[in-house]
C-alpha cells in the first residue's frame, strides 16, 4: 500500500507541474518543484514529465491559436521558476548524448525580442542548450560566439526589413570561417524564399515550427 501511495503522489506532482505551466501559475510551479525535490523525485523526471509536458500543451494551443502571447509569457515564467529550482539538482549523466548547442539572437538594428524569446523558451524546454545573445546583435558577435561555443545552430530573428539585411553577413562569416553551425532564420518580414536567397539552412515562421526545424536539422 505504501508504495502505491508514493507513486500516486509522484504522478500528481508531475501532473500538477504540467498544469501550473499551462495555466501560467508561477507560485504553484515553484511550490511543486520544491515539493518534487523534497519527495526525491528525479529532477530530470520532473522537468521532462512535468514542465516539458506542460510546455508541449502550450505550444499546441499556441499553434491552434487558442493561446496567445500574454498567456505564453506567464507560462514561461511558471516554467522557468520550476526549472531554476530543479536544474541545480540534475545528476550529471555522462552516458547521455550532449544536447545540441544553439546561439540565438535578434538581428542588428532590431530591438523587438518577444518572438526570439518565445523561440528560445520552446527550444529550451525541448532540451537544447541555449546561448542567448539578446537583441540588436552585430553579425560579428554571432560568428564569434558560434566559434567559441562550438555551436550547432545559430538562430536569428528580424522584425524589420532593415534589420533582416544584417543576417546575410552572419551566414557568410560562418561559411568563410568553416564553422559547423547551421543558420536558421525567422521573423515577420522574412519569407522562406528570402531565407533561401541569403543562404540560410532553414526558415521557421513561428516558435513551434522553429523547434521542429532545429530537430530536423539535428537529425532528430
Amino acid at each position, binding site marked *: 500500500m505504501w508504495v502505491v501511495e508514493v507513486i500516486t503522489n509522484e504522478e500528481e506532482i508531475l501532473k500538477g507541474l504540467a498544469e501550473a505551466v499551462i495555466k501560467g501559475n508561477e507560485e504553484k510551479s515553484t511550490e511543486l518543484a520544491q515539493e518534487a525535490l523534497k519527495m526525491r523525485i528525479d529532477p530530470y523526471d520532473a522537468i521532462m514529465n512535468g514542465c516539458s509536458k506542460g510546455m508541449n500543451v502550450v505550444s499546441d494551443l499556441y499553434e491552434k491559436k487558442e493561446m*496567445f502571447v*500574454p498567456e505564453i509569457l*506567464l507560462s514561461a515564467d511558471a516554467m522557468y521558476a520550476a526549472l531554476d529550482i530543479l536544474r541545480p539538482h540534475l545528476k550529471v549523466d555522462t552516458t547521455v548524448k550532449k544536447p545540441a548547442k544553439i546561439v540565438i539572437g535578434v538581428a542588428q538594428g532590431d530591438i523587438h525580442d518577444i518572438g526570439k524569446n518565445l523561440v528560445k523558451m520552446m527550444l529550451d524546454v525541448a532540451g537544447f542548450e541555449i546561448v542567448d545573445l539578446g537583441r540588436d546583435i552585430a553579425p560579428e558577435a554571432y560568428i564569434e560566439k558560434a566559434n567559441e561555443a562550438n555551436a550547432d545552430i545559430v538562430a536569428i530573428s528580424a522584425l524589420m526589413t532593415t534589420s533582416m539585411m544584417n543576417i546575410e553577413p552572419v551566414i557568410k562569416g560562418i561559411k568563410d570561417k568553416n564553422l559547423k553551425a547551421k543558420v536558421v532564420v525567422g521573423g*515577420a*518580414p522574412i519569407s522562406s524564399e*528570402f531565407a533561401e*536567397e541569403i543562404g540560410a539552412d532553414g526558415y521557421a515562421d513561428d516558435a513551434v515550427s522553429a523547434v521542429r526545424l532545429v530537430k530536423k536539422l539535428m537529425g532528430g
Partner: protein
Amino acid sequence: MCKITMKKRLINALLGEEVDKMPVVSITQTGTEALMDICDAKWPEAHYDPKLMAKLAIAAHKEIGYEAVRVPYCLTILLEALGCQVSKGHKTRQPSITSHPYNSREPLPLKPISNDFLSKGRIPVILKTIKLIREEIGEDIPIIAGSEGPVTIASDLLEVTTYMKWFIKQKQAVVKYTNYGANAVIEYANALFEAGADVFALLDPVASPDLINPRDFNEIVLPIYQRMSKKLKGKVVVHICGDITGILSYLKETGFDAVSIEEKTDLEKAKEIFESKIRVVGNVATATTLFNGTPKQTYDESIIALNKGTDVLAPGCGLAPLSPLENCKAMVEARDDYFK
C-alpha cells in the same frame, strides 16, 4: 464621371463613395533611401527639421506618384512627447524607443497629459511640416499624417512584455494605460487635422493577434478605439500589422473610415467581413515584393489587390527604406493601367 482632385478621390474612396479610379497612396511611412538621395533630405535629419521632412514627404508624391503626401517616418513622436527616450537611427534605420518610463512590476501612477502637450518633443515639428507641405502642394492633394496608436503607446510606456502579461494579471491597469495613450492620440490627431492633415493614420502594430488575444482586443481595445473615433475630427485609417483576420469583425465596429491591411490578411476576406461598413486599404507586400521583389511582381500584386476590391491601393505596411524606386512606381503604373 468628371475629373476629380486627388484629395476628393481619396476622401470619397475612404467613405466608400464613387470614384473615377481607386487612389494609390501610402498610409504608412514613405521615406526611402532612393528618395532621400533625389531630394537631398535624409534621415535622421528629416525626422527633426520641418523643411527636410516636408521635402522628403513631397518627393514620394512627385517621384513615385503616390496621390497623397504622408508624414512622418517613425512611430516615436507621441512616445517621445510622453517621456520615452528615442534613438535617432540613421539614414536607413528609423528612430526607435530606447526607454520605458513606466516599466515596473506594479502599475505606476500616470503623469497627467499637460496643457502644453502639443509643444512637447517633436510635435511642433510635425505640425509645422504639415503647414509647409500645404503651402507647397496647394489644396488639391491630400495630406496623410500618422502616429502610433494607444496599444503601441501603452506597450512602450511599460515595456511590451510587462504590458502583455498585464492583459491577464492587471486588466484594469491595461485599460488605464491604453486609455491614456488614446487621450494623447486624440489631442495630437485633432491638432494634425487643424494644421491641415486630411487623413489620420492610426498605426497600432502591437494590437495585432500576433501579440494580443483577439478576445482581449474585443473586450479592451475595441471600446477604446470606438471612443477615439467619436472624438477624432477627420478621416481615420487604422493600420495593424500581421495576420489580423481574427479581429476584422471587431475592426468593422470601430467607427473608423478604413482598415489598412498587410498581405498576410486576405483582402477578399476583409471585404466580405466589412460589407459596406468600413473600407479596406492595402495590401502590396512591403518586404517580399516592394523591397525584395521586382517591378513586375509589384505590378502584378497591385492588380490582384485591385481585383480583390481594395478601396485604396497602398503598400501593406511602411516602405522599407531600401525599397527600389521602380518597385514603388510599378504600383502607380498598375493602377493607371487598370482604369485605362
